């Protein structure tokens, strides 16, 4: 059972990360910074529960707000640069965040034990859940409640004007501006919202694994984050969810017998999908079931 809980948790974090990148991709911004916001959320909420002994819900919220604040700051320079330049700049941002935590030492003595981030040794003993008697099943349920809330929020976004505006900006910035849309507000809001989602995901990740270090936040993870919505397609949120289940559930867990050959498959999958289904797996004919989720009024 523990094993399946582990997989479910993992799919949960990755879905949240993918959705945070999805929100930005709607506005046409390919951001590799999501893993940076994820790391900020993880460390910030971890520090809050471990060092300051704050309640988990509050810590997750504050962690996400801190992450979204950094996303807000990244959003402004990101306005001036587009496309490929944004990719490079956000890669650099995520690496700066990773290296910052690689160097961060903030040890505090609690009950005779030193706790807190310890540089390259990582941040151990983020044990809020265990200390407060949460069962693994509680943790999984909690994570998935958050995932479902975020999925619902982003699904619902497409039914209100904000969703159309985000997509309009993603399709044609000049036409959107000429229709009276303030690009700065839309893009920075999307970045901030994406940072918030990634921040919550980071907090959940830190608390359910009880240990994070800089190696948890590499460019590979940033690539996963943008790959899910791109592979799944931007038609709706379910593309991202599907891509996460496909990659984390089937490719990485389901094909264990392949050993480390599985790692080759991720790169190969991206190459194949980009060549043959550039608009995402959701457009493959056999996935016509996706019509079930199609918006009635689209």
């Amino acid at each position, binding site marked *: 059972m523990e094993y399946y809980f582990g997989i479910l948790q993992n799919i949960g974090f990755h879905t949240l990360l993918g959705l945070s990148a999805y929100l930005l991709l709607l506005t*046409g911004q390919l951001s590799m910074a999501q893993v940076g916001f994820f790391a900020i959320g993880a460390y910030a909420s971890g520090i809050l529960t471990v060092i300051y002994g704050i309640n988990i819900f509050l810590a997750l919220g504050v962690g996400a707000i801190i992450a979204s604040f950094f996303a807000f700051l990244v959003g402004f320079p990101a306005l001036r640069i*587009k496309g490929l330049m944004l*990719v490079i*700049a956000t890669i*650099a941002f995520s690496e700066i965040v990773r290296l910052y935590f690689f*160097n961060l030492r903030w040890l505090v003595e609690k009950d005779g034990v030193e706790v807190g981030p310890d540089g390259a040794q990582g941040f151990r003993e983020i044990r809020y859940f265990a200390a407060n008697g949460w069962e693994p099943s509680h943790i999984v349920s909690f994570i998935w409640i958050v995932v479902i809330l975020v999925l619902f929020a982003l699904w619902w976004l497409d039914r209100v004007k904000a969703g159309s505006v985000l997509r309009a900006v993603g399709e044609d910035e000049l036409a959107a501006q000429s229709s009276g849309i303030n690009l700065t507000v839309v893009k920075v809001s999307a970045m901030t919202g994406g940072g918030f989602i990634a921040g919550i995901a980071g907090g959940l990740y830190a608390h359910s694994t009880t240990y994070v270090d800089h190696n948890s936040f590499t460019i590979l993870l940033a690539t996963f984050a943008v790959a899910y919505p791109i592979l799944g397609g931007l038609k709706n949120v379910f593309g991202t969810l599907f891509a996460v289940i496909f990659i984390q559930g089937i490719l990485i867990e389901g094909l264990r017998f392949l050993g480390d050959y599985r790692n080759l498959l991720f790169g190969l999958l991206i190459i194949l999908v980009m060549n043959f289904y*550039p608009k995402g797996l959701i457009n493959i004919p056999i996935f016509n079931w996706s019509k079930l989720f199609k918006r009635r009024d689209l």
Partner: protein
Amino acid sequence: MSFGLIDILQSLIDGILFGSIYALIGLGFTLIFGAMEKLNMAYAASSIGGAYVGLGLATLFSLPLFLVFLIGPIAAGLISILVYLVSFRLIPSTNHLGSLMASIGALFFIDEVIIHETQGSPLTFPELGIFAEAYFMLGDLGFRGDLIFIMIFGLISMGVIIYLLYYTRLGLATRAVSQQNVAARLCGIPIHTINISTFVLAGILGGFAGCMAAASVGVISPLLTIPITIKGLIAAVIGGLGSIRGAIIAGLMIGGVENFFLLVRGVNERDIYVFLLLFVFLVLRPNGLFGNEINRD
């Protein structure tokens, strides 16, 4: 921690010399961007991949070790062709995101092949013969022979590429393709041949840089790929995407900055400052040192 002016100068010299490697990788990124307005994210990975193939073949057939430096670049050129075929050839030129993602896919694929083949452990890489032993003193300052060799090679490549691009028919065709893709096709320029030649040329340069990077530290490991990719990209951006001399100058500069901060802030923090340098440029000079206004996705 105390250091004098000499230490600072020495670290800058070592850094700038080592920066030749970033300059060459940045040059490759910029060449491909100049030809196609696209980024080949797998570029540094194919460079390191080439170095591995060179080392592997030389070990397998007990070849003289200097041949590594010949086979490596050729192999990198061949890997670049493969990358072009799988990540660029079939994807429409308007789909910038598609090629970008596909080349990131290729980056991780190449990296994972290397990890799989070597069980993830670093290998010893041969040094560059007589160049590795050479060490010149100028007053109190020392210059590493192998790094000087790389730098001279980098500057020569820059000269050759500028010559190729601006004084030959091939170069004319390349520039035509990059500026007016459709018009160039209508004029009968075979754009895929042009693109492949650009990839091969960039690949050979990258393969050389990959061998040099490994030779100068004495080991080769897949862990080299990501840092070299990022610093090469930063060199290309700071130099102004598409600018050849910009990439070279920015690459050397990054090497200098990196080594300077290695001296003053230590190995764990130095890269933070290199990456911050990118943001300084993005805010103050978003088009880089020599870049034109770029309004592309």
